């Protein structure tokens, strides 16, 4: 289990992370969210043992993370962290060996992963000759080459097309099913919603929301109603408690203050003809994120 206990990090007088705590169990995928400069990278670096917390501690299975346990960790950085002059196999051997693996084991695992990601033909290709998406795949492959106990993924889907995003998702879920602890960071909230059971949202180094995603969503009062059919937008907008009505083709998204408004909207909508859909849903994580973080995310 990964435990981040009351961790604070100061750079001089600047507080990058302020009293952050969370735990991630084996098999869980944890979302660490925040705008740029919120303290995610500092948190990752403290988890990796690259930075010493000013206060608090980070442990993996009760043991402080240092170079004796880093062989069990996989790390995918937000930006490409590949030595682009190397060939794919050389890069895998380079990072794999730094994880304490033997060359034979690295190449065996590399073959498996290259096949899985449909990249076997690139084994001896210099990384600089690969497309951005393929470079990202290689970065992911090198991060999981050691079947890590703890896997840190900082924006793993960057530069990937939807087809490859699915491939990544499957592999991440497979690793979680095998018992890996996965910490995940992304600006794409729909990805986080799909994966993470638990999340933390950081604002200026401080946690503003933390816990089970389903609980967070339930606690968040604002809801969305999705309607398909011919409705009178101005009539709906005038209902007390309706925040906004947006049109998407033949469908509408009606944002409401809380559950109590649902009945009022339903009473109005049922009078209209040709209504084929009326669905109440929790607010999306993106809405919760924007609401909590405020306009800074947009910036």
């Amino acid at each position: 289990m990964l435990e981040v206990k009351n961790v604070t990090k100061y750079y001089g007088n600047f507080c990058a992370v302020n009293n952050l705590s969370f735990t991630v169990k084996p098999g869980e995928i944890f979302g660490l969210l925040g705008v740029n400069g919120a303290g995610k990278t500092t948190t990752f670096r403290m988890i990796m043992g690259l930075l010493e917390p000013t206060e608090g501690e980070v442990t993996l299975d009760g043991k402080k993370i240092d170079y004796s346990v880093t062989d069990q960790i996989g790390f995918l950085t937000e930006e490409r962290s590949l030595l682009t002059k190397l060939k794919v196999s050389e890069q895998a051997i380079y990072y794999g060996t730094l994880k304490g693996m033997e060359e034979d084991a690295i190449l065996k695992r590399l073959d498996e992963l290259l096949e899985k990601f449909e990249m076997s033909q690139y084994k001896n290709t210099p990384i600089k000759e690969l497309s951005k998406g393929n470079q990202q795949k290689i970065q992911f492959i090198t991060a999981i080459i050691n079947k890590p106990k703890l896997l840190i993924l900082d924006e793993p889907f960057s530069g990937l097309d939807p087809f490859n995003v699915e491939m990544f998702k499957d592999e991440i879920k497979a690793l979680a099913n095998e018992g890996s602890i996965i910490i995940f960071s992304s600006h794409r909230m729909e990805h986080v919603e799909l994966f993470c059971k638990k999340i933390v949202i950081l604002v200026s180094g401080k946690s503003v929301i933390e816990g089970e995603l389903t609980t967070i969503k339930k606690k968040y009062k604002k809801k969305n109603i999705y309607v398909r059919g011919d409705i009178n937008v101005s009539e709906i907008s005038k209902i007390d408690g309706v925040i906004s009505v947006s049109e998407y083709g033949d469908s509408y998204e009606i944002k409401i203050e809380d559950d109590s408004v649902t009945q009022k909207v339903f009473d109005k909508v049922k009078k209209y003809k040709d209504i084929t859909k009326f669905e109440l849903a929790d607010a999306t994580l993106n809405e919760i994120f924007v609401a909590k973080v405020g306009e800074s995310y947009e910036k």
Partner: protein
Amino acid sequence: MKNKFKFLTKESLKRKISSKWFKIVNIILCLVIMAALNIDNIIKMFGGDFQEKDTVYIIDNVDGNVYDVFSSQINTSTSMFLADDNNYNIEKYDKTLEEAKKEVEQNSKIIVLEFNKDSENVINVTFLSKEYKDLQDMAILNTAINNTKVSYAMIEYNVNPESLAKIYENVKINRVFIDEEKDDKSENTNMLMTTVFPIIILPFFMLTIILVQMIGAEVNDEKTTKSMEIIISNVSPETHLASKVAAGNLFILIQGGLLLAFVGLGILVRFLSGSGIESSGTVGNYIGTVIDLLKGTQVFSQLAYVLPLLLILLITTFLAYSLLAGILAAMTTNTEDFQQLQTPIVMVSLIGYYLAILAGLFKGSLLIRILSYIPFISAILSPSLLVLGEIGIIDVLVAIALTCLLVFWMIKYGIRIYKVGILNYSSKDLWKKMFKSLKQKKV
């Protein structure tokens, strides 16, 4: 589990040595060094006017002995300017100057000297040639003509030929030293080493630059590609820097060895081509002269204890340069910044190099002696001063001790800058951050 330090060192070295450019540069270096050592043979191989000697026709309107006197004088004056004293064909010319003009018109390698009696200046000479002559030819011929005139003047004043020969003979100088350990051979070596040693030490300067560039470029490359994040999450910054230092020093050891091998190859080619090391006017001749002079001095006999000390000084200096390059590269956020930072390192090395040249001109200079203790400069300056007899073994030991202290300081405190620097991607308040990191034990 693999030794990560060994792996990183091997990878760094492999990346450098297996690169296409390493091979290309060394092939070029090999060819250039071999060509430099055999430049005279190469020039001769292509041929040209220089292979044909100038023919000097002597028209003697004085007394019929000018040819003999001038022939003797031209040999003396040629040997003053050139190693080869057989640079001209001297021939008697019995025809007139007008007839000689026709021959000169046909052949630019002919020079005609018409010697005439002169009531005021003993003799005068008409110098006839088709083309302009170069400075060297003019100097040799003018000296020979003037000496011929002096000979005639002495004969005119009844100085007999035996006395004349004695007059032209070099003065025997009995060189006496107060210090019995000193001798004139060492003095000659000192004079030569003043100019030669900076040339011998030149490869050290070159290797220093290669070392700084290699370590800096690698650290910078890993930092800018962000692969540093992955590397440092698996090995400590201390191990990482140590691997760079080890790889850098092994690389220059290999490069230095290759340079020596290229010199050896060049000399071998000289011998195989039948030129020998002693051919005139070449680098080979220069090296041969230096070795001959050194043989007659105490330098070789002192090598047994001087060489290990100088090697220690070189190794510690290379270590200091490597650590400095790594630390500075860690601080920079892009390749351009590192290139800027390289300049002061090169300047420091250059200062040492120039001081080594100046040391022979400013004998006994206290400033140069003090500077010879300063790390980085000492590796070039101390050996020069030691060979010149300006400093002793104790001074070299002081220079080694100071360099070791600097290496220790950089290992203890520089690593703190390195730890902060390698994960810093912002140039804002860079120096403030770095100075602050010096005080931090933990990052």
